[in-house]
Structure formats: C-alpha cells, structure tokens
C-alpha cells in the first residue's frame, strides 16, 4: 500500500506494489506466488498508440472548429482532452498492475484496473505459444507472449516482455507443456 503516485484504492488493494506483498484481491496464495511485473517501457508504447489515435481525432475536430466555428467542436475537444488524461493515468496504472507468475504446474496472469482479471492456465493444457511484436513494440525492444489452450476464453497474454525474457518464457512454457501435455 506504499506504492508511489497512487492513491489507495477503495478496498486498499495495490497490485502494483512489491512483488510478494499480499495486497490485491486477485492476488491469492501470496506465499507461493512470485509475481513478475512487465517492462514499464510498455507505458510508452501504449502512450504513443494513444497519442496516434488522439492526434487524428484532435486534428479532425480542430479543422471542424476552424471551418464551422461551432462551439460544439470546442466542447468535443475538451472532452477528448479529459478522456486522454484519464487514459494516460489508466495506462500507467494498468501496465504497473500487469503481472505474471510461473508456478510449478500453471502460469498465472493478472491484469486490468476497472475489471480485474486473474487467469490460471495449467501448462499441460497449452496448445501453442505465440510470440509477437508490433513495430512500436520492436522500437522499444519489447515482445508479447500469448499462451493458447483449446478453450477460446482462455486469456493468458503477457505483453511488454524483453525479447530475452520472452524467449525464455516461451521455451519454458514449451518445455513444461511438453512434459505435461494432455491436450483435451
């Protein structure tokens, strides 16, 4: 509960805190789980993504305002600014919250601020592992690892990993999955 730049949340949870602190409601078994956070460079990736989207929106609105001169466009710009500020805060916090943990038999992934999600995926259920990196992610030297099972609903995506860590995780998941492979 002592993380900087964060006001204590409603029920005092603080998933961005120290790795082993039993603080989040979605952080069960603190004794056995060692959470690893993802690279904070992902914040920049997400912010640039946001900026690109906003730039288009803002330019459109500004042109509209200049041409039509209606107050509505000004109000919309204001709304966009407020939204952008909120998104910036959300992105920063969301990236800090995002974490994963490798246990003996399963991979834990937690993410989400408004809606908090914790996924528990047994290695034995792994069908394949995806490692991907978009141009922005590559520019910041990051990659995303995604674990797929036979269930479409499985939600085990870990973005913002260093390539070395991504390939280590991939190899480990593959090795463990192969050891314990069960398929369906």
């Amino acid at each position, binding site marked *: 509960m002592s993380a900087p730049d964060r006001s204590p949340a*409603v*029920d005092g*949870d603080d998933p961005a805190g120290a790795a082993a602190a039993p603080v989040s*409601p*979605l952080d*069960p*078994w603190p004794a056995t789980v060692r959470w690893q956070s993802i690279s904070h460079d992902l914040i920049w990736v997400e912010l640039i993504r946001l900026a690109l989207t906003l730039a288009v929106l803002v330019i459109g609105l500004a042109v509209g305002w200049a041409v039509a001169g209606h107050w509505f466009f000004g109000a919309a710009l204001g709304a966009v600014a407020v939204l952008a500020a909120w998104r910036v805060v959300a992105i920063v916090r969301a990236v800090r919250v995002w974490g994963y943990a490798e246990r003996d*038999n*399963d991979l834990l992934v937690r993410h989400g601020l*408004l*809606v*908090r*999600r*914790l*996924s*528990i*995926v*047994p290695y*034995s*259920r792994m*069908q*394949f*592992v*995806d*490692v*991907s*990196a978009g141009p922005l*992610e*590559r520019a910041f*030297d*990051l*990659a995303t690892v995604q674990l*797929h*099972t*036979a*269930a*479409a*609903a*499985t*939600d*085990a995506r870990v973005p913002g990993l260093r*390539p*070395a860590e*991504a*390939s280590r995780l*991939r*190899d480990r*998941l*593959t*090795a463990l*999955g*192969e050891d314990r*492979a*069960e*398929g*369906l």
Partner: protein
Amino acid sequence: MTASPGPAQEPTGPRPAESGADQPAWADHGAHAQQPAPAEPPAGADHPGHAMAGIEAGRAEQAGYAGQAGAVGPVAWPAGVPEGGEPRQRLHPLSPALHGAKSLVVVIAGLSWSTLSRVGFGWFAAMVAVLALGATVLALVSWYNTGYHVVGRELRVHEGLLWRRTRAIPLERLQAVEVVRPLLAQLTGLAELRLEVVGGGKTEAPLAYLTVADAAALRARLLALAAGAGAVPATPEPEAVPGAAPAPAATGRPLHAVRNKDLLVSQLLTPQAFLLPFGVAFVLAQFFSEGSTSFIAVASTLTAMAGVLLQPIRRVLDDWAFRIARDDEVLRIRNGLLETRAQTVPLNRVQTVGVTWPLLWRVKGWLRLRLEVAGYSAGESDDRNRPDRLLPVGDLPTGESIVTEVLPGVRLAALPLTPPPPRARWLNPLSRARLGAVLTDEVFAVRSGLLTRQVTLVPYARIQSVRLVQGPVQRRLGLATVHADTAGGAGAAAQDRDLAEARTLAAELTARAHTARLGT
C-alpha cells in the same frame, strides 16, 4: 477457436517430414518442442521480428499440413495413385443431382413471392429451371473433381477445379463421425458423412454423398484408424453399423427413448407456439379490415409465420424418435424424422453437460440436457450439425439417469449448490437465490437463470483454464466471478461469489483439474 496444436514455438526451419501423420496431435506438438530448436534466435533487438517470422512459418506450415509432402496452396493434382496410398475415390454419381435439387429450394426462396407476382408463372418457372440447371452443372463439375482416400492415418479430400485444394484430416484429431441422411438422400438411398476434428472452425469435409453401406464402412474404418492412432483410447468399434438402415435400433445398451408425444407437447410449450394465435389474430384482423386478400399477401404472411415456427418445427423434426444408447465408452444418439442422423460421441470427449429448465416446461417438470464436445465450433451457423442434444425433453429422473451415465457419480437433483452472499443482490436483484455453485467430487456445477433455469456441469479433467474476474461494482461489494474455461462451449461461471470463497474456488478448481488429469 484457436485450438490448433501449432508448432509456433519453433523459430524457423521446415518441419521434418517424418513427424506428422504418425503421431497424435499433442504428441506431434511435443515432438516439435523436443527438437532442440536448432536456430535459436539470438536475444537482441532483432529477436521479436525473428520470432514473428517463426510464427508465420509455423502457421504456414500448419496450413501446409494438408500437403504433408510440402504442397501448399494450389496443389499439383496427383494424376495417378498417390504415394503409398489407395486410389482416390469419387463420391456417388447421384451426388450432383442431389445438390442440384437442393439448390432448387434456395433458388425459389431467393426469387421470392414478389418476383413470382411480377414476372408471371411461366417466366418464374423458366428462371428457376435455368438457375437450378446451372447449379447442377456446377455440382457436376465439382463432383468430377472431388475425391477422397485414406493415406496412412489421414483422410485426404481433394476438391476444386480452378482452386484446387487438398485437405488432410489427421485422424488422431477426429472427434466424431456422423452419418447424416437428409430427406433427398433417404429417398435415393444415400448418406452424407461428416467429420468433426479438434480445432476445426466448422464441420470438416462433409462427404456428400455416399451410399449408406460405403458411408458406414468408411466411418467404421476411420474410427478404427483414429482409435489405432491412440486418440480415442479404448473405443472398440463394433461391427454393427447404425447408419445401415433407415431406423434400426441403436446398438449398445439403450438408455432412453423420448416419446414423440412428449416432444410435440414440449415444443408446443414454447414462446413461439404460445404467441402464434396472437399473430394469426393480428393478421386476420388486418385482412378483414382492409379487405385485401390477394394470393401474394396470403403467401407472404404464411412464409413469415413459417419463419417464426421454424425453430419448434425443426426441433420436432430433428429430435423425432430420439434414442440414446451407451456402447462401452461411447454414446450413440439417433434422431430425426426427415433427416435421420446417427451420432457417436466418445464419453471422454464430453466437455460440459448443460441442464435447462425452460419456464413453460416447469408445468410438466421437464428439462433438457445438452452436451458440448470439443471440435464443434460454437459459431457454426447451422447448429443442427453439432451433437448437442443429450435429451431433448424428459423428466427429472430420466435426466438424472442420463447425467449419471455421462458423468458417473453426479446426482443432478442433489447438487448441494450454495447461493452467493446476500450482498450479491445488488448485482442480481431478482436472481440471487437462483445463482449457485458447488464443487462436488466429480464436477464443478453452477446454476443461473431466473426464468429459464440452467445448470452447467464441468468435469474437473476438462477444465482448460481458470479465471477470476472482478468488475468495479464487484470490487466494492467484495465479490468476484470464477470462470472455468472448457474447449467446447462457454464453460461455467460461478457468478458473484464472496472474494475469499472465489479464491478458494479458483485454487480448488486448479488443484482438482490437475489431479483429475493425472488420474485419467
């Protein structure tokens, strides 16, 4: 659904030709992982791109799995006998005629009543004839170019004239084989063979049409090969073939036969049937007030009404003479009036069992059982193809006995379901008491629904992953939802449990799923 055992972890390099059809799907995957990744990508700035290339290669490879000998995309048509296999076989010569006749219905529907009124009957008939003839010619061309044969442990289906396609269906991935007989096929003594595989977006390779004997023989052979490949352990295929005659008794130990009267009554107890009189009254009132009773208006109205009634009527037709039997570790389901279908569902492929109590059926105390099997996509438009019915209608004791057959040890009436804590009423003002979840010795059971009550049963060994989700309101109330994801269907979700309980549930589910997998 991305349930393909893709070798995405292998960076680059072609797959060795020998690892392929000779191993089960997941062992195949393992075989990939075992290779010591010779071209281990160097850790560095270029790595992600490298990895991406690897993924692409993996995908392309997977797509090219069809070719196995490296043939991807437009395949050179193997002229003679392909390598190490039997000659390719054509479908039954009557197939194009049947396809053409089928398209006739589509053509008439497409032209619609209004066209008939505009162009007159003669022209209408001519248009229908031309279009149907065209469709038949296309079907003939497609029939000429379609062939199938079994190579090793794969069924290969070749098709297409301009865009040639060869699909190889690894039999280890076979989930079920169905022999389906639509009305026209029944009249001509033919049958359609449908294969369901893991990870298939839709029913793969419907072989339409074969003679009934051929279809049954091929089905038995495919199942035997699949069993030999280790995918369906201990599934001896008996020599008796259910698809051989229009409606023979299902083999194995009969579990239940639904009475057709019950089926009719149950479909009358649906919202559609209940609302029909109001619709008829409305239409009649309109007619008499306006006095316009032209043929077109009547025909259009009747078509619209048929549309509303389509679902109950379809259910009646589909589930007519529904019989379920158990044959060792396999469920055999036969149903259908116009289109007789024989489904074979290995019990170890059942992912979830759903029990539904529709509102109007409560008068009779009836319920409906459904099952989800991996490999059947949820998004398939024609959901009649999925073996989802375990019991179209039945009372509680019947349902209970069938559930016990599918999931031994589960007592449907005596599930000790517990509702979420009282503060969950803020999220579910009316249905809180109807929600429930329990971990029994065999299954994870959840209940939901105020008007249409539903219970979903998930065996622990079928759980693919566990998720704990907490929305903003749930956070204030100290609640969380626990999801158990399965390969087919939506899985089960225990809604709005107390946070501590949700954590325990998640931990228990994970642990039990683990031990259950070890046990099997």
